[in-house]
């Protein structure tokens, strides 16, 4: 009788997929990250620092304040437990943002596993709208960034089981951070009225994000690097391909190069229909994998067919179906995704976006279960 230990995490599975191979036994899982409320619901334990500003927490620990140390150790261990108990072969290290901002709107959360408030970006207001704001902004210091990253990395690495690797996630992407700091409306105006300010914004942000990529990729327990940089709507990118090529892609390319320098793969998450710039992302930016898909506009099955011979395709189980589909329909849908994306390898199963607190846990866990059974590859040796 054949026995496959499909529950045991082994980063070799995902590593194979990122190199466009078939994994050793079953389809691996990939998600950008899981919301704290989901981690708590699955592990039945509490994340003690879930709503804390982790950048400030880490900074105060480094200054000798030991109040948070135990909580940090506990939370890292709990995150590892969440990912590995479900069968992920890696653990996400969410790098906290070093870019403080106040242009955030708080609103009631209506998710099933709701949090006290849901935060939204204020697109009409930026913390940097002028040259004067730019000069006064507390741009982060790279050596402090490094110390904070290493504190978090080392804490996580200490708890890491054998054969599991860390995938750090940058605190937003290059374009995202520029848009978040400026607000989309002021940013769009500045593109016309003060191009130099926008260029300087990309330089400042790009320098920091690419530095995170470098210091992450250097670490022994880092198996790959991920960056989320949402660039579009359902119909296409926020910005014209020309502007993306001029201002955004060169910095994203720098991020990828800093990871490739250490022989590690780069996972790129971006929401939006990016067909018009996919060739740029593959050939110029140099991404190894694409994540974030939506059935109504940029379905994973289509991307696998179009780009699956050059980059790995990750996730893609539609968020709407994860959140609302009846279980029996959802099971058939996930099987269909596997049927169409798994052949040939280079594919990992996961949510179309993140394991958000608004997905139905019943559906999410069904996806994991189906992946472990129906996602088994042909056996090479009996």
């Amino acid at each position: 009788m054949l026995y496959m230990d499909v529950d045991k995490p082994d980063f070799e599975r995902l590593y194979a997929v990122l190199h466009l191979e078939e994994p050793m036994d079953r389809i691996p899982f990939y998600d950008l990250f899981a919301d704290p409320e989901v981690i708590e619901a699955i592990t039945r334990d509490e994340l003690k620092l879930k709503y804390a500003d982790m950048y400030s927490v880490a900074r105060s620990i480094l200054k000798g304040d030991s109040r948070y140390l135990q909580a940090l150790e506990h939370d890292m261990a709990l995150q590892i437990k969440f990912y590995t108990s479900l069968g992920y072969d890696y653990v996400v290290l969410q790098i906290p943002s070093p870019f403080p901002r106040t242009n955030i709107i708080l609103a009631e959360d209506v998710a099933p596993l709701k949090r006290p408030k849901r935060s939204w970006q204020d697109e009409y207001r930026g913390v940097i709208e002028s040259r004067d704001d730019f000069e006064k902004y507390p741009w982060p210091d790279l050596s402090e960034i490094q110390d904070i990253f290493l504190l978090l990395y080392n804490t996580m690495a200490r708890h890491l089981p054998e054969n599991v690797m860390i995938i750090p996630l940058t605190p937003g992407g290059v374009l995202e951070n520029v848009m978040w700091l400026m607000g989309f409306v002021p940013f769009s105006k500045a593109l016309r009225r003060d191009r130099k300010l926008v260029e300087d914004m990309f330089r400042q942000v790009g320098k920091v994000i690419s530095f995170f990529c470098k210091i992450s990729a250097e670490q022994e327990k880092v198996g790959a690097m991920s960056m989320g940089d949402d660039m579009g709507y359902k119909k296409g990118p926020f910005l014209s391909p020309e502007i993306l090529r001029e201002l955004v892609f060169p910095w994203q390319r720098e991020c990828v190069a800093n990871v490739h320098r250490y022989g590690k793969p780069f996972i790129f998450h971006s929401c939006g229909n990016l067909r018009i710039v996919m060739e740029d992302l593959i050939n110029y930016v140099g991404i190894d994998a694409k994540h974030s898909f939506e059935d109504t506009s940029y379905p994973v099955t289509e991307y696998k067919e179009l780009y699956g011979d050059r980059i790995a395709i990750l996730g893609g189980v539609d968020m709407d179906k994860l959140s609302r589909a009846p279980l029996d329909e959802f099971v058939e849908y996930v099987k269909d995704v596997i049927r169409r994306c798994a052949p040939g390898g280079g594919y990992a199963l996961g949510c179309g976006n993140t394991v958000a607190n608004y997905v139905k846990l019943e559906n999410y866990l069904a996806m994991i279960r189906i992946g472990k059974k129906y996602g088994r590859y042909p056996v090479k040796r009996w």
Partner: protein
Amino acid sequence: MGKKKLLQGIVVDIIKTDEYRVDEEGSKWFKCIFIVELTRFSKRVREEMPRDLKNARVEVVRWCSYDWHFRKGVRITLTEEETDRVLQSLKSQSR
């Protein structure tokens, strides 16, 4: 994980045999012969496949169970042993 050299190809044909095994959940896995047309080395190594192997056809054994296992025209990755065997045979042919 490593920089192991693995050959890749396209599945051009699958011959399903009657031989099967049963897994721990009771599913049957049938022994199949996959006919593979070689195309390249996997991305793990940034190395070109020897020109003599381009479009060469090899046979490998796979045990299949689910419908999607039988899809032709898709990429397949040879194991390290299968890759070594192909490369060795190429060497002995060229002697």
